[in-house]
């Protein structure tokens, strides 16, 4: 064997071992330092908060079903939309994307045994439930009413819950910033043999870009929210005009984070959609370099467009012009991705499994959301449509049609790897179609409402909007019901779903090169190595896990599986 000069040193580190016996539930699960368990913890907690945020939304929709409804009083309604937005952004979407998927999948995809700082990872998770409970506790002391955007002077005058909101945001911000540091070091330094940056799966590229955004944007929010807390508690006059403060300052500080935040909530979704489309079209991703660069471009430009949320705040026209142009430019990298995905599917061998359906549904809804985004980017249009239901429609198309759909796509895709069980395909398809149709039915009519002048964040409305609002409310209940299909599918799968093979979808990325689920500590039994790009379906699928016994499928098994919707993967 020829001697090989290795520029880096070879890992002689983590052997695969089992956790010590006699661990309490707390130690084994909630305090686990294994990135896979941390990821599961994040996903489970985030899903619980998704339900909380969803219940708040449904209560609002009950109130909005008829004009002049007395179901909720206006103050409580204000609390509800504030907490709905805050919960969905900070307790569901960001933790699920950043803490959930990234934690579980990214180290596997780069062939690493864990993240760079496993105990820091555990700390990041441990901060999450208390931060969430701190936020929820505000309901006991008078929840904030200023919207998730929390503009002063309303947020300066609000009840104690507004201060609890501030503290919760800071705790959650620390949690995600620590995660970002962890992921950046992991990706930069812990890629396995042969995993050059040009062979990085696109999900990892998207995580790299997202982590950079989290790292730089979240502390800026902490600065602003910290100052808000000081302003409320000690009368520090940053936003108090009578003592020299400026109200618009808050908006700058808040949106400097919150615009990148929306990209933080979608970019990992873009990454996993790239994975799913490549695998279920059985073709290499079209425009790999373009997608990778576009992720970096989105991360950079997203930090430079924040004031398109402030067109009606009285900022100078010259600034409005700049932000309008920059916002229109940022649509270009996303458009590049959309076309690349379409190019990947062209003449591909499509398998319309549930994850693929969610990916396709995502493309439809996200493009609609993107188009209305371009409309809103235009300053004159925004003057009319800002703070109307047109904006509510746009944001839900990109956040529900975008983030939520990609989250479900990723959940169905990685469910076998995470749990070692298969989901039921037929139930999955029911879930998709019901959710896709009802989501469009819920959010599309909101465009019309906004164009006709219905304002957002109001507990009631003029009678002319009544019919549409009733339709939307009914559609939203169907949307909630579709989620229950997922829950039922998940629970039955965990209890009695068929055991998942290492690579049920026939993917080529390293996350599918172990058993399902991967070994508890260390992931791989042998050092993984990579010799080709991650979407090479002509090469055999890699496997670096525990040697698996050959499973002979009897004809009866095959028929049973076909009946359940599974097909052989070559």
């Amino acid at each position, binding site marked *: 064997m020829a001697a090989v000069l290795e520029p880096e040193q070879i*890992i002689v580190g983590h052997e695969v071992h089992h956790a010590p016996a006699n661990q309490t539930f707390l130690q084994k699960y909630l305090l686990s330092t294994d990135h896979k368990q941390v990821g599961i913890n994040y996903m489970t907690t985030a899903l619980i908060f998704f339900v909380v945020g969803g219940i708040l939304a449904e209560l609002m929709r009950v109130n909005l079903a008829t004009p002049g409804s007395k179901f909720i009083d206006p103050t409580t309604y204000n609390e509800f939309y504030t907490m709905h937005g805050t919960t969905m952004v900070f307790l569901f979407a960001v933790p699920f994307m950043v803490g959930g998927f990234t934690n579980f999948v990214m180290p596997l995809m780069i062939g690493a045994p864990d993240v760079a700082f496993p105990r820091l990872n555990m700390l990041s998770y441990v901060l999450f439930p208390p931060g969430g409970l701190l936020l929820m506790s505000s309901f006991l002391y008078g929840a904030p009413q200023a919207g998730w955007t929390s503009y002063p002077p309303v947020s300066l005058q609000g009840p104690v819950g507004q201060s609890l909101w501030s503290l919760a945001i800071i705790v959650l911000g620390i949690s995600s910033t620590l995660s970002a540091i962890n992921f950046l070091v992991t990706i*930069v*330094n812990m*890629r396995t043999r042969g995993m050059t940056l040009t062979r990085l799966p696109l999900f990892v590229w998207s995580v790299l870009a997202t982590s950079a955004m989290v790292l730089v944007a979240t*502390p800026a929010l902490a600065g602003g929210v910290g100052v808000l807390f000081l302003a409320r508690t000690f*009368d520090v006059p*940053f936003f108090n005009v009578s003592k020299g403060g400026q109200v618009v*300052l808050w908006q700058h500080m808040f949106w400097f984070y919150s615009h990148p935040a929306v990209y933080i909530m979608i970019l990992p979704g873009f990454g996993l959609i790239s994975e799913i489309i490549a695998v279920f079209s059985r073709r290499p991703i079209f425009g790999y370099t373009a997608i990778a660069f576009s992720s970096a471009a989105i991360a950079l430009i997203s930090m430079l467009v924040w004031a398109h949320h402030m067109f009606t705040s009285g900022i100078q026209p010259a600034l409005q012009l700049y932000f309008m142009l920059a916002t229109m430019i940022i649509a270009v990298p996303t458009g590049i991705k959309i076309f690349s995905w379409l190019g990947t599917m062209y003449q591909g061998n499509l398998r319309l499994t549930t994850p693929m359906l969610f990916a396709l549904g995502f493309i439809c809804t996200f493009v609609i959301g993107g188009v209305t985004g371009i409309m809103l980017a235009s300053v004159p249009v925004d003057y009319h449509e800002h703070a109307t239901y047109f904006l509510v429609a746009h944001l839900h198309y990109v956040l529900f049609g975008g983030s939520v759909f990609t989250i479900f796509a990723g959940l169905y895709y990685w469910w076998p790897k995470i749990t070692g069980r298969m989901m039921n395909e037929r139930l999955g398809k029911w879930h998709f179609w019901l959710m896709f149709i009802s989501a469009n039915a819920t959010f599309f009519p909101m465009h019309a409402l906004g164009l006709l002048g219905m304002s957002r964040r109001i507990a009631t409305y003029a009678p002319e909007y009544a019919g549409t609002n009733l339709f939307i409310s009914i559609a939203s209940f169907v949307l909630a019901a579709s989620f229950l299909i997922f829950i039922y599918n998940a629970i039955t799968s965990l209890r009695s779903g068929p055991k998942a093979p290492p690579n049920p979808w026939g993917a080529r990325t390293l996350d599918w090169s172990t058993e399902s689920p991967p070994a508890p500590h260390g992931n791989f039994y*042998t*050092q993984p190595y990579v010799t080709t790009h991650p979407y090479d379906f002509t090469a055999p699928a890699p496997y670096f896990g525990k040697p698996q016994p050959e499973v002979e499928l009897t004809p009866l098994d095959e028929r049973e599986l076909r009946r359940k919707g599974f097909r052989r993967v070559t």
Partner: protein
Amino acid sequence: MSTVSTPIAGHGGGQVRRNTRLSNGLLGVIFFLCSEVAIFGSLIFAYLYLRHAQPHWPPPGVEKPALALGAANAVILLSSSVWCHFAEQAIARGQQARMLFWLALTIIFGSTFVGIQAFEYHRLNTAINKDIFGATFFTLTGLHGAHVSLGVLAWLTIFILGLRGRWTKEHHFPLNGVSLYWHFVDGVWVILFTIFYIF
């Protein structure tokens, strides 16, 4: 290429693979400092934004802190960066005693900075919630002072562990980490000193 896969053997004692010449820990500190740039940056932006909106600075009735004492304090803090650099150099050569000497100086100078800051706070005729100068000055220098204090505590920890012989020529990474943090804190002070005391 060998056809036999090599099991990942050993546990803990082996060397860790990395893709760059920097260790995980050092990279972690560098990224952490990026996040610190962001938080100070947002507050500095707030200060400049608010100051720009004021016709007179400082606002009527408010005195800026004395330039002379502030300059002296800045020199004290910046020189502590030099001392900690010497400490790093010393341990890189395995010189334990010298490292401890320079560490002690770093701690003394760092604490002196905090002490003089506290004295200046006491002397100023405004408060954090009295006017916009007080709000921005105390928030920013207060956050900075908290960072300096934590840094001094970190150096104390390093010093005590050094007394117990923990640092060697081969293993003294925490010194490098805290040193990077300390240089960053000093860099922030250069900016704060410029925008509050000088201009």
